[in-house]
């Protein structure tokens, strides 16, 4: 799970793995590891601390990744703009692995995502999902889609 801070990486993971959600923002320090079975595949989710003004993504946490979920906040356009540079960091470290994109907080009234961005992501071969960790919207599809690509 890669993306800017406070976009909902942990929330998506927790919703998917444990079906829980909390509105409270708790920053992730380092990386949190969770595992879940998708069909017959055991998926180990590395919920990596978000990129923030103090620290870049720690690329050590990306090593060995078989697929990437880029997460952006649909109410903060800068977090979606950030995905391209995050991709460069990622591809350096792990190569051209399968990618899905979660545009999270789709339930929020301030949602503002340009269709150009979605088209750009699709052109890179990324599946884009409007997700809501809060409502559970597309959370399952997001992970299942990635697993499907990785297999």
């Amino acid at each position, binding site marked *: 799970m890669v993306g800017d*801070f*406070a976009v909902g990486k942990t929330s998506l993971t927790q919703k998917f793995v444990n079906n829980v959600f909390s509105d409270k*923002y*708790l*920053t992730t*320090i*380092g*990386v*949190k*590891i*969770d*595992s879940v079975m998708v069909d017959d595949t055991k998926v*180990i989710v*590395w919920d990596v*601390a*978000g990129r*923030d*003004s*103090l*620290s870049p993504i*720690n690329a*050590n*946490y990306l*090593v*060995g*990744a*078989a697929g990437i979920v880029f997460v952006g906040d649909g109410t*903060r356009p800068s977090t979606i703009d950030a995905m391209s540079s995050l991709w460069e960091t990622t591809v350096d470290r792990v190569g051209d692995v399968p990618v899905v994109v979660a545009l999270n907080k789709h339930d929020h009234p*301030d949602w503002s995502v340009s269709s150009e961005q979605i088209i750009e992501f699709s052109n890179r071969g990324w599946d884009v999902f409007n997700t809501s960790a809060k409502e559970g919207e597309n959370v399952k599809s997001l992970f299942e889609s990635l697993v499907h690509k990785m297999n």
Partner: protein
Amino acid sequence: MSLNQDRVAEISQSLFDRRQFAYFLLDTQWCVLEASNNLQEFGFSNLEVGVDATDEIDFLVGIDISDNHELSMISSPAGDPIRVTFIPSVSTITVVIMDARQEFLRQKQLQQKANENELLLGTQEKLLSEIEEAKIKLELQNVELQEAARLQSSFLSGVSHEFRTPLASIMGYTNLLLKDSDETSANYLSAMKRSSKHLLSLIENLLDHGKFDSNEIMLNPKSTELAEVFSDVELLVRPLAETKSVNFTITTDWQAACFVVLDDSRLRQCLINIIGNAIKFTDQGRVTVVASLKDDDLHVSVEDTGIGVSEEHLKKIKQPFWQAPDTGKSGTGLGLTITERIIEMMGGALDIDSSEGVGTTVSFNVMAPSIEPTFHQEAQVLTQFNRSLSVLMAEDDEDIAFLVTLLLEEQGVKVVHVANGALAVDRLQHEDFDLVLMDLHMPVLNGYDAVSQIRGAGNTTPIVIMTASAIEADKGRAQELGCDGYLVKPVDIADLLNIAQQLVT
């Protein structure tokens, strides 16, 4: 990072007991070769020699172990933050697990705060831009509302204007009829006139209101004698008070000739409105007006013992079109709104204090800078006549006739006034005058015809024509008929006397 096994051993020797770190040793197939005793403390419970570590530890899956590698902050199976360091050698990998709780807390405090701050900043920016947007939206709405209000008031004034003209003509004709009507008709006609007047004043209010909304009301301040304004107002409203058992008094604190600069007609309007209301809503008791002038500020209070206004209604009373329910009084509900706005324009404020059933006090102040009274310019020393002149004046307009008569009488001239040319001709047959003043436009017999009859009868009394229009003043014709001079109205009494002096010798 280049720790060798000796070093690891050293570390384990010295620090195991303090439980700050644990370790295990794997071969290249992830098989556990050796494990420290304290691994359980970190939750690695099943990590025994011989097992495949990737079955037990998720974070090992997919890790490249051919190189030095470190996971600086990761959760242990027990849920505690740990630092994991991979130290590969030729055929083994040492995995060192260190307690990272302190580091975790340090980072967490720092990062949570920093991220929260940044989120707040983002929210703040968003809010600011929302406020900005809302402001622009409001401004737009405001413009639309203003336009709507402008349309409404221009509609109002348009309609009012259309009403006013025919209404004024009804009033005008009523007036004309009143002049020669018997008593019964006069009563009916007076009622018609009152009703029309009331209707007209409602329309005037609507018009004024519209003008305020489109900023068309302009003040026209001029030198004004305050006493005159108040006596005018008294003349107008006293009859209203006298129809009820209301004791009406006006008290003022200034000297007789007190001149101030203000728009007297607007002040009159305000006074009539406020005092009129006081009388309207007072059925018995008194309406007391007290006016004082101090430091160029005119203060007026109008106190009545009328029905009063409830606290709830007092809040609404100045709103346009608002009227107290159940008072049985009619109106547009605009009078007070307009009055207040005029008062504000005149640099003052209106204040209403009332208790229901006891009475109401409306007070206001307006700027009233005093000036020295403007004396009429000293006229030239007027020609004095040795004897008293006698003048016959033919003039159908009473306003003019009275004024000229008075002005001449003040100069010691005797004046006889007749209302048309025929009467003048008749009068001259029986009486001698020093001078004839002849208006041109008159009923029955006009000025020119009268002059021609007078001269035709051989009368040589000097005749001076008075006419309202220079265009109509046909000097040639006047001379031809035998007139001795003529004056264009407004007639200056000094000119008149000068002409008289030349003619009467």
